[in-house]
């Protein structure tokens, strides 16, 4: 079963200087009980992708083509706002970078956790007991006494764990997480990954997980997609991508991870150049202006090179493995 299938999705933002194509022909799927990771440079369209799925694009944004099939039968790209609101928070839950987006500063945490359970018939006391259990699961100390506290009384990391607890209360089919572990220390980050894995087993949900921390993606996700300038440039299992990345952008991204450096270096590796202006995409391969491997062929749109299994790279020269580039 596939929980989410995104097919040829394109999104444009209308700006004063013309349309900005933030997503272009994005396709991937999230199978049941799986975690799919999304990685890519700041501004490559990860949050736009999530907003498109949730029907929360900014007013100047528009889905210009494609489908977002949820649970086999609903096309979220065409769903009316009322039906979409019915899914959000119930079947599709979210956790974002900034936990204050999920928390109301003027209500106690206990009150907010009870409010999310408004559809349940449990008594107030039983709802609070569930809240306490959930807070304990995300490692909030003294959960009983914490229920009466307000968000500002918690540290940044604690607020994020509370936001995760609130998202999980609903037992969603799909949890969308945009950098939820950015504020957590390594032990709690790992604990959160373990928690998300447990949850998947417990209630059988899928996770679409965005993170800049490649180590976290490697640990949590079964599959991943690599985005560049609004396009999926490579996708496959996590193992395929980390061990045998074939797209030059993916290879460079992996090489920039300080986790790969065994020695302290004078200058950290970076990718020279910047993302192209999405109002004026280069013709041909979108990575061409920054690619060392570019040649005349790259001025025409690259094919999808199928590298076996589900592993695909959109590149004319996807035959050169990772080690060959580092050497």
């Amino acid at each position, binding site marked *: 079963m596939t929980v989410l299938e995104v097919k040829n999705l394109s999104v444009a933002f209308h700006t004063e200087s013309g349309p900005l194509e933030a997503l272009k022909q994005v396709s991937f799927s999230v199978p049941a009980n799986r975690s799919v990771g999304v*990685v890519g*440079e*700041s501004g490559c369209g990860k949050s736009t992708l999530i907003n498109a799925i949730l029907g929360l694009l900014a007013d100047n944004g528009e889905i210009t083509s494609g489908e977002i099939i949820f649970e086999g039968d609903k096309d979220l790209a065409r769903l009316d706002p009322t039906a979409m609101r019915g899914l959000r928070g119930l079947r599709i839950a979210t956790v974002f970078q900034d936990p204050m987006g999920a928390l109301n500063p003027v209500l106690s945490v206990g009150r907010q956790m009870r409010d999310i359970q408004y559809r349940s018939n449990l008594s107030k006391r039983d709802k609070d007991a569930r809240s306490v259990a959930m807070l304990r699961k995300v*490692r909030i100390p003294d959960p009983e006494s914490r229920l009466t506290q307000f968000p500002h009384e918690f540290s940044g990391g604690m607020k994020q764990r509370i936001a995760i607890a609130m998202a999980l209360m609903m037992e969603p089919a799909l949890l969308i997480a945009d950098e939820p572990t950015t504020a957590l*220390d390594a032990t*709690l980050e790992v604990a959160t990954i373990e928690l998300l894995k447990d949850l998947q087993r417990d209630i059988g949900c899928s996770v679409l997980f965005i993170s800049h921390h490649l*180590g976290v993606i490697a640990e949590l996700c079964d599959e991943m997609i690599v985005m560049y300038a609004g396009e999926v440039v490579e996708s496959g299992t996590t193992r395929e991508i980390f061990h045998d990345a074939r797209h030059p952008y993916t290879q460079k991204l992996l090489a920039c*991870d300080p986790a790969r450096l065994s020695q302290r270096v004078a200058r*950290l590796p970076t990718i020279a150049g*910047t993302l192209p202006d999405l109002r004026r995409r280069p013709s041909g391969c979108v990575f061409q202006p920054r690619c060392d491997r570019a040649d005349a062929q790259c001025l025409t749109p690259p094919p999808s090179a199928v590298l076996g299994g589900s592993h695909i790279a959109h590149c004319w020269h996807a035959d050169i493995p990772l080690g060959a580039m580092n050497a």
Partner: protein
Amino acid sequence: MSSDDLLRVSDLRVSFRVGGLSARLAGRATEIEAVSGVSFTLQRGSTFALVGESGSGKTTLARTLNGLQPVKAGTILFEGQELQGLSNTAMKPVRRRMPMMFQDPVGSLSPRLSVRSLLSEPFVIHGLSDRDLNAEVTRLLALVGLPRDFADRYPHQLSGGQARRVGVARAIALDPVLVVADEPTAGLDVSVQGEVLNLLNDLRDRMGLSMLIITHNLHVVRQIADRMAVMYLGRFVEQGETEAIFRAPHHPYTAALLSANPEPDPDRVHQRITLPADVPSLLARPSGCEFHTRCPQAQGRCAVDVPVPVAVGDSRLTCHFPLNT
């Protein structure tokens, strides 16, 4: 204080009132010590990293150095001047020399102000509007490697990395000697993170800056920090030379933290030291060694005797049974 010591913090304590009347009537604790007896020295031109559990007091410590949180006890000696108890007015010139980059970079750039206004603001705040602000803006943009015409952009027209560069430029606008940066690369991809850290390193070399950096990314700590400290429940449980700590952590919590560091390899078999889930509350600090409720090495006396700081090699730590000795 040696002449190379830029900042010397001794037995610093910072507390918050919590709970309120009902807690007081019920006889519960109404005060938490978020920073609880922290001592360290930061040398000129060096980078010091602060890591630790979220809620362990890192941000509170940084804010206190900057005079944004009152000191309950202890001393902060910065460039030979005692900062504890200084009024907001008296702290103002200190902040020119010890600028702070706050934890939430997106929120800290006001969306309605152009980059020019954002970079002029520090001069205006410190009553230096008579300077040639256009020249200052141009100088700052060049320092952080942004083109001059970025002065006319607004925050929403900047990429994540560019916004962070503007944040750095604001921090170093006046006459910085120590930059306090709370999670300066959170939310950045690895390539842009590398750019920002290279920029901070360049500024350190070119302007002789010192840095105090708070980060959760242990790979980053290893790349940029000369010394580091590990915080737990408001205390430094271990501090020392970064490379030495990574090679051989002495405190069991440090060892657990370093073993948890996620690595970019799905096939990696982790030999993790897993800790029990319950992080103790600052309202009910454990007896003896405060880490004993979660420590895999704990023995009988750990629940009773408070460990005193000991030196092992160049590191200082608080544990009765240090590892790797």
